[in-house]
């Protein structure tokens, strides 16, 4: 049984069909990539999974149960963690407090939550900045903070939204290493990414979309050589 399944999901905003009949399955333990050019609907799909707004039709099944009508915080409690494309640090709180607040999802009591937070900060190489206000972190730190916050909720499935965007090559490598470590520790990952290097090297399978519709699905190799994908990214001339 797949961990996450999207069944014929449609999402319309007024007259615009942002997600148009998208279906895919994510198996436990894999890193599943979602690619597509800007504006193709990737983040919208994430927002649908997290129920930031209701989907127009179709179903989303997590761990065998439909999560269609749940509220966003319930989805998190069910085991889906998420990072945001535009990072949203809780700016005026310290890095440690950011993660502590998140840890309360699974533990009660301040000591336990802080202990959890410290462990995760170390795991994400943020322990040196733990007492600083979140807004003082550079972009790479903020991206790691997004992940740390999501990890504190002990997700079974982690949704990563453009984690490598805006990072320099060294930082990108670090991000890849972190993601692999997370997967090795048993968390399934659904990753949206723009940067080919990242997604091609770490994904087990890839789903490509354009204009809200599926255009290809398969292994990284297969997808990279796919006609439609090349057209979408580079234009018809390169196909």
């Amino acid at each position, binding site marked *: 049984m797949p961990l996450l399944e999207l069944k014929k999901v449609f999402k319309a905003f007024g007259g615009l069909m942002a997600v148009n009949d998208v279906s895919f399955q994510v198996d436990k333990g894999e890193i599943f990539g979602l690619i597509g050019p800007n504006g193709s609907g990737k983040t919208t799909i994430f927002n649908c999974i997290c129920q930031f707004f209701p989907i127009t039709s179709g179903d989303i099944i997590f761990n065998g149960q439909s999560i269609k009508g749940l509220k966003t*915080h319930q989805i998190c409690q069910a085991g889906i963690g998420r990072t945001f494309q535009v990072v949203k640090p809780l700016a005026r709180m310290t890095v440690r407090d950011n993660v502590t607040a998140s840890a*309360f999802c699974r533990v009660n009591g*301040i000591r336990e939550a802080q202990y959890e937070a410290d462990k995760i900060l170390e795991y994400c190489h943020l322990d040196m900045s733990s007492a600083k206000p979140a807004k003082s972190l550079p972009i790479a730190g903020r991206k790691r903070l997004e992940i740390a*916050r999501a990890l*504190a909720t002990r997700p079974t499935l982690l949704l990563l939204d453009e984690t490598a965007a805006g990072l320099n090559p060294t930082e990108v490598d670090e991000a890849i290493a972190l993601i692999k470590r997370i997967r090795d520790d048993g968390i399934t990952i659904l990753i949206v990414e723009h940067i080919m290097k990242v997604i091609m090297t770490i994904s087990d399978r890839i789903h490509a979309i354009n204009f809200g519709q599926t255009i290809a699905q398969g292994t990284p190799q297969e997808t990279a050589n796919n006609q439609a994908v090349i057209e979408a990214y580079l234009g018809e001339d390169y196909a």
Partner: protein
Amino acid sequence: MVAHRLLWGLVGLFFIAFPIIVPSDYYQHLIIIVLMWVVIGSSWNLLAGFTGQISFGHAIFFGVGAYTAGIFATKLGISAWWGLACGGIASMAVALFVGWVCFRLRGPYFALATLAGGEIFRLLATNWESLTEGMVGILIIQTFRSKLPYYYIALGLALTCVLSIHFVMKSKWGYYFVSIREDQDTAEAMGIDTALYKNISLLISAFFTGTAGAFYMNYMGFIDPEVVFHLNYISIMAILVAIVGGAATIWGPAVGAFVMVLVQETFRSAFFGLAPKWVSQGHALVFGLLVIFVIMYLSNGIVGDWRKIKGIFSRAA
């Protein structure tokens, strides 16, 4: 550190011994009012400074608390002191409704809705004469002739309020409130039931404000809709008290209450009788100017901008 503790200890002792040291009715009255505003300001601060929901209608809760006590006395024939226990609860009930209506709104819409709420309650109190005596107001006979008991009740109330808020903010709830303030969508994605926690913050805030209102009824002996549901002198004053002292700090509103009440009173009494009469009439004007000044220069409050203020006084930089 020891000097710090000693200072706080002295301040505490001063407040406890105050009415005995200063037997003047007038000054005791002033400090009682200050203490009442410590409660209202801190309560507002919990909802707005810490949880980010800027209410422009806290008069709702103050007035409901005051009228609960008053109506107990006039309509039910029981002592208004029961209002002290129930004023907070009545305010919480009203808060649930206010939250249901207003929390679906964000930012300025929320502020406006609460402002409108305050006005609606004022008009309700004015027009529902069979319940509230309308513009005539409610008059009761005060239980104590001396101000001492009232002083200590107010002091107890203020301490309970500030300490409660202090402990709440140190707990899981505190983390959740601030997370909601910083980014509500992110908070949801972190597993925080934002609707629930906004309401919890509101309920606590309303409870203490309502209790302050009930206290006011018992202490002053007279209320009417204009006084307890006043936009400027209750709702806006609550905001100013918190801002002047420092929103999102625990002791800020306490400092702010002190400053705001004293400044107001200085002008209302024409510098305690030392200045010509017309100064007194200008006290409302001063209130307006104070708002402008505070927003323009002290938006993080005395406690919040403490470093900036200290810097002004120590020229050697």
